[in-house]
Structure formats: C-alpha cells, structure tokens
C-alpha cells in the first residue's frame, strides 16, 4: 500500500533548479534508496518528502492527505510522530546526554520523563550503546554519536525514516554496522526507509533504488524499480 506519494515535485534554490518534477511512491515498510551524483537533488527530494521543505510546485501526500499545504507547526508535528529524520552528523544536542537526546522526541510528544528515559535506554540498548546513556555527544566517537542519532530517529517508532547519507561521516566498517542495525530494526517494526546515498554498497541495503539525474528520476533502466529476490523480504 502506498503511504508516501510525490507527484511532479519542483524545487529551486534561487535560480538553480534542484528538482524538476519528481514522482515517487513509497509503500509501507519498504526500503528505497535514492542515489545519483552530487547535486542531482537527492537531499532536496528527501527534505520535500519529509515536509522540511515546501515544494515550489507539485504535491506530496502522506496516506492520501496533502502535506505540502500544511502549516509549519503541523508538519513539525508530523515529523516528530509519523516520520524520523537522520542526517550525516551533528544533529544531537551537544549539551544533553545520549539518553536525554534520544528521549527528546518523546518528551516533545508529551511523554513523562521517567517513561521517556526508559524507552530511550531500550533503544540505546538495541544499538549496543546503552553504556553511553549519560555521556554527551562530545564525549563519544562518530560511530557512537550516529548510533544515538539513529536511536533517536526510531524511538517514536515512525512509519517512515528519512536518512540522508547516514553513514557518510563514518568509516566503511562502522558505517555498515550502523546501517545493518538500522535496516534490521526498521524491518522489525515495518518502518519504511528513504535512504539517500551516493555509494552503491549502501544502496544495496534497499529493496529498490531510484536514480536521480539533474533533478529528474532517471528512467533509462538505471533505477532498479523492481524489487529483486535478494533484497526484499
């Protein structure tokens, strides 16, 4: 069942067009890789899908409802309940501990402090970093920070996780460990993942791959829009 839908999405930064009419469907629980060379509009597409950016033209719908028309507050609410967002680095609040960072989305949603901390600890445990709960980001390695950030993105059990080069700042081995855990947990709770990357070996974690080129989806057969036997479950 299609949950997230983009129709002819256009977005420009000043005179520079980033997206020139992208159409894309994301169904429940699937993992979609968005790849393409630098500057092809990958990140902009992710921002538009997640309701961070408003498209200049075209539609973005979530479960049949337009979200590009919603107010900033309503889209914020959507992002912290139905969606999870994960960046390359630097999204943890430097002054809060790992547990507080992970608990933050729950606290924003009105969960009590004790309950939110318990949930945060569970998620840190799932990513194997429970012992970091009371450390601040400055006291952790890059891989540990990214595990905490991933835990924070998944703690609300979102329906879609938007990940923009989530392993971009990590070495190959650490990146693969983080991504393997992310994909496993997303599949367990049937969270769809939109994974922006430029690396073939990262895109290989997805069920299917969309290739963007100059702000458009490449239909020359490059994007393997058909789920392959090995990738999907």
């Amino acid at each position, binding site marked *: 069942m299609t949950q997230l839908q983009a129709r002819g999405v256009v977005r420009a930064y000043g005179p520079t067009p980033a997206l020139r009419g992208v159409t894309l469907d994301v169904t429940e629980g699937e993992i979609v890789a968005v790849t393409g060379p630098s500057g092809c509009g990958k990140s902009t597409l992710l921002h538009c899908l997640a309701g961070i950016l408003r498209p200049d033209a075209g539609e973005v719908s979530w479960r049949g409802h337009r979200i590009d028309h919603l107010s900033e507050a309503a889209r914020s609410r959507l992002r912290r309940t139905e969606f999870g967002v994960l960046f390359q680095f630097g999204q943890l609040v430097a002054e809060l501990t790992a547990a507080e960072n992970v608990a933050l989305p729950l606290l924003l949603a009105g969960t009590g402090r004790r309950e939110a901390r318990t949930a945060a600890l569970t998620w840190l445990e799932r990513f194997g970093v429970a012992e970091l709960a009371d450390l601040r980001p400055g006291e952790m390695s890059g891989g540990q920070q990214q595990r905490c950030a991933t835990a924070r993105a998944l703690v609300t059990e979102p329906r879609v996780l938007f990940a923009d080069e989530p392993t971009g700042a990590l070495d190959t081995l650490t990146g693969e460990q983080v991504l393997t855990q992310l994909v496993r947990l997303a599949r367990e709770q049937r969270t769809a993942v939109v994974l922006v990357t430029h690396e073939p070996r990262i895109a290989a974690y997805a069920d299917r791959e969309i290739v963007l080129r100059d702000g458009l989806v490449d239909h020359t057969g*490059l994007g393997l829009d058909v789920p392959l036997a090995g990738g999907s479950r």
Partner: protein
Amino acid sequence: MSTPHVLLGLLAAGSRHGYELKRAHDERLPRARPLAFGQVYATLGRLERDGLVAAAGQDRAAGPDRTAYALTGEGRATLDQWLSTVEPPMPYVASTLFTKVVVALLVADVDRARTYLIAQRAAHTARLRELTTVKADPAATLSDVVAADFAIAHLDADLRWLHATLDRVADWHREVHP
C-alpha cells in the same frame, strides 16, 4: 606463468618425484587449474637443462617416472630472487567486462554499449544486494561475512566504474569513431 617457480618452491622442502610434485601442487592451490603429468615432466626437463634442478637418485627398476629431483644452488637463488621481486600492479587492463564494452563500441553504436552497461549494472547490483543480505543476516558467521566482503568490495569497484563509464560512453564513442 609461474608453474616453474611453484615447482621450485615445492622442491625447496626436499627432493621429490614428479608424481609427488603434481599431488602437492593440486593440494596447495586447490582453485587453480590442475597440472597435467606431461606438463610437470616437460617443466622439470627445462629446469634440469637450465641447471636449476638435478636428478637425485634414480629407481631405474620402476621406470623413468620414478626419478627424484632436488633443488641446485642456482635453483635456490632463482627462487629467492622471484620471491623478493614485487609484481607489477595490474600491468595490463584486462577484464571481459571492460573488453566487451570496447568491442560493443567498435562493432555497434553508443546505445548498444549503453544497453550492455545498464544490463551489467543491474546484474552487479542484484548480486551486491544478494551478498549484502547474506552479510546482514544475524545468523551469518564471520567466514560468510569476510567472503561476502571480498566480493562486495570488488562488485562495488566494478559498479563505480560502470557508473563513470555510462557518463563517458558518448564521448568515448566519438573518440573511437572520429
């Protein structure tokens, strides 16, 4: 071809018959093409002529194939030299993948080459996903992971080359057909 050096290496441990040498070779290099008996004797003959090995005691009663060979001082020096020589890294660019694109450009047009590249990319990507799934399986052993990693690294390199070549194939065609 390094068969002479492999035989010299096998003889470094002590003198052996031709038959024993063939068996030791196949055991140590299981994935290599098996050596034929004829090739073993031909190689040993050349090595003896060049003075690198010498017949060390013959069991005439048992026939010519029961001749044992041993490493000479010159043979040991040759082996040492071979082992300490660095191999030139990829001196020739040779791969069916690469050659096929070149031939496609020679005999057909850009589209033919592009079609092949896209199909090859799809196959590579499918294999990459397959191996990634093997690797990401919680039940995977370290042997599986290390073996999958070796293949994944090479597929990843091929895919990068395929991507780059797809972007260059039109210019390349112009160069081939000025």
